[in-house]
C-alpha cells in the first residue's frame, strides 16, 4: 500500500528525516514509536503534503502513485488520511458541512457521484453514534470548543466517513482518557480489513494494546533503527528507547 525508500526531508535547511525505509502492505497496521524530535510528525506531514517541508531525496509510493508529487487534496482523494495530532479549529465552518464537502470533493475527484444532504446525514449520524459522539457535534463548528478527546474523536469520525486506504494517526492517543482511547481504537479497528492500512504514531504502548499492530518500528534521528512485531512495543515500554537505540545507549 505504502512504500517509502530512502526518504530524506528537512525544514528550513535542517535535516529531520535521514533516509526512511518503510513498507506497509495492504491490510496491515504498523506502529512508529520514537522519542521526541525523532521525526515522527515530520514523516506524517511529508506524507500528507504539508507546506514548509523540503523533500531532499527518496521516494514514497502510495497505491502505485508517487504521492510526493501530488497536492494534499490529491493524496486525500487517492485514499490517504492524516489524523492530526492537533486537530485544527475552523470557526465559522459547520462540522457536517465540512465533512460533506470533504467527502464529496474526494468522490468527485474519483469520478464517483456526490452524496446528497439526506444520504450524507444518515451516514454521518450512524458513524457519530458508533463513536459515541452526540449529534450536536455535527452541528457545531469544526473542533471549536471541542475538548481534546472530542477533537480526536472528530478525527476518527472523519476517517470513518472518508474510508481511506491508509490512515496515519499522529499521536491520536495524546490527551485521551482511557474511555476515549478505547472508543478511538474501536473506530480504527472497525476499519481494519484487506483494503485498509494504518500507520500509528505514538509515544506509548497503551494505544497499541487496543490497536494491535502487525509491525512496530522505532524511529530515531530520522531513521528507522529497529523493527519488530508487537512485542517490540512491550520491550520499549519496559526498557525505554535506550535499550533499542544504539546512539542513545
Amino acid at each position: 500500500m505504502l512504500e517509502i525508500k530512502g526518504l530524506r526531508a528537512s525544514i528550513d535547511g535542517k535535516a529531520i528525516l535521514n533516509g526512511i525505509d518503510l513498507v506497509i502492505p495492504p491490510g496491515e497496521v504498523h506502529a512508529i514509536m520514537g522519542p521526541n524530535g525523532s521525526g515522527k510528525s515530520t514523516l506524517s506531514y511529508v506524507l500528507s503534503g504539508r507546506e514548509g517541508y523540503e523533500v531532499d531525496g527518496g521516494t514514497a509510493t502510495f497505491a502505485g502513485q508517487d504521492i510526493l508529487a501530488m497536492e494534499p487534496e490529491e493524496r486525500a482523494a487517492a485514499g490517504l488520511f492524516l489524523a492530526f495530532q492537533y486537530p485544527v479549529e475552523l470557526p465559522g465552518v459547520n462540522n457536517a458541512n465540512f465533512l460533506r464537502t470533504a467527502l464529496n470533493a474526494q468522490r468527485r475527484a474519483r469520478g464517483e457521484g456526490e452524496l446528497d444532504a439526506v444520504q450524507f446525514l444518515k451516514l454521518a449520524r450512524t458513524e457519530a453514534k458508533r463513536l459515541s459522539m452526540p449529534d450536536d457535534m455535527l452541528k457545531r463548528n469544526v473542533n471549536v470548543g471541542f475538548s481534546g478527546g472530542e477533537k480526536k474523536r472528530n478525527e476518527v469520525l472523519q476517517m470513518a466517513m472518508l474510508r481511506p486506504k491508509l490512515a496515519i494517526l499522529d499521536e491520536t492517543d495524546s490527551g485521551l482518557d482511557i474511555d476515549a482511547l478505547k472508543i478511538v481504537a474501536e473506530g480504527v479497528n472497525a476499519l481494519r480489513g484487506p483494503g485498509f492500512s494504518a500507520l500509528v504514531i505514538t509515544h506509548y504502548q497503551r494505544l497499541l494494546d487496543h490497536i494491535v499492530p502487525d509491525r512496530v518500528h522505532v524511529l530515531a534521528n530520522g531513521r528507522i533503527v529497529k523493527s519488530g512485531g508487537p512485542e517490540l512495543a512491550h520491550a520499549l515500554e519496559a526498557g525505554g528507547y535506550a535499550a533499542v537505540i544504539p546512539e542513545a545507549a
Partner: protein
Amino acid sequence: MSAPSGPLAALKAAADAFVADYHARKTSLPGDSHVRAEAAALVATQGLPGPREEAWRYTPLRPFAEAQFAPARRAEPSAALLARIPAIAGTRLVFVDGRFHSELSGVPEGYRVTTGEPAFGHLARPAEEKLVALNTMLAEDGAAIHVPAGTDAGTIILASLATGAAVGFHPRHHIVLEAGATLTLIDLALGDGEYLSNPVLTFEVAAGATVTHLRTQDEGAGAFHLSTVYAEVAEGGTYDSFALTLGGKLARMEVHARLAGPNAAAHLNAAQLLGASQHADFTTIVRHDAPNTASRQTVKNVLTGRSRGVFQGKIEVARIAQKTDGYQMNQALLLSPQAEMDSKPQLQIYADDVKCSHGATVGALDADQLFYLRSRGVPEAEARAILVRAFLSEALDPITHEEARAAMEAAIAAWWERRE
C-alpha cells in the same frame, strides 16, 4: 501665473460645477426649495470633503473630483440589470438613475410611501457633512416611507439601478417607523459603468420600533458610491443593519446612529469584499445619548488585488448614557500583498459606568486551516472559499431574514468567482 492645481483645486472645481448645475436647474427641482438653497450655499462655501479633513484622510475624493457627472435623465434599465434584483418577497420600490420608476415598483399595503420628490426629513445635517449638503442641493427624488404605530410593514426592496450613463444622482429617502412598528428594508445599489450615486437615507425609529436595514452595494466597476445614513432610535427601538460592499471604484458608506432613548440598540455590521484597485470605506458614528443603550459593530473586510479597505468607527457615550454597552470589531483578511486596510476606532466616553470594547485584526488566510481542509480532499480554491466565507460568518450569521441572507451569500459567491 498658472491656475491652481492639485487635489484641492480639483475638489473646488468639482464643487463649483455641482453648484452651477444647481443654479441652472433650481427652478425645476422638486421639493422644498428653501432647504435646497441653504444646502447650495453650504456647497458653494464649503465645497467637497478634502484630504486634510480627519474624517476623509483615508478616502481621498480626488478621483471623484476629476470625473464629471451630468444630471440624470429618465432611463430604462436593461433586462440584465433588472434581473440583478434578487427574488425576495416584498414590495419593490425601484429607482433608475435616481428616479422613481413606478412601472417597476409595487404598491405598499398598510403603510404609506410617497415618491416624486426628495424626502428630506429633518435628521440629516448638511452643515456638518458636505456630501449631505451636495445631496440636499441636487436631490430630485426619493421615497418617504411611513409605517404607522404597531404595524409590521414586512419587507420593502428599495432598489437603485444605475444604467451606466455618466450621470450623478442624489436620492433622498426618509423612513419613519412609529411606535412598535417593524420594517425590513432591503437596500440595493446596483449598476454598470461609471456614475455617481450619492444617496442619503434617514431613519426615524420610534419607541419599541425595529427597522432591519440590509444593504448590498454592488455598483458598476467605475462607479462612485457615497452614501450617508442617519438613524435616530427612541426608547427600546432598534436600528439593525448589515451592509455588504462589493462594487464601485470608490465607495464610502457613512452611518450616523443616535441612540436617543433608554434601551435603544444599533447593529452596524458590514462586510467589504474588494479587488483590483477598488477603494471602500465604512465609517460609523454611534452616539449613545441615553442609559442602557447598546451598539454592536462587526465589520469584516476581504481584500484582494491592490484594493484598499477603510473602517472608521466612532463611539460617543454621553455623560447621561450610563450602562452603555458598546462593541466594535473590525477584521481584515488580506489575500494579496498589495491590499491595504486602514482601521480607525475612536471612543469618546463621558459616562463612568459603561462597557465598551473594540478591536481590530489584519491577517492572511491561516495556513494550518488551509492545509487541514486540503488534507481532507478539499481542493485549494474551494478551501480558500470556505475559509473566506467562514471569516464572514460572524457578520452574516446574525441576519435573520433568510431570503436576504441567501441573496447576499449568492452575491458573495459570485464575487469570489469573478475576483482577481
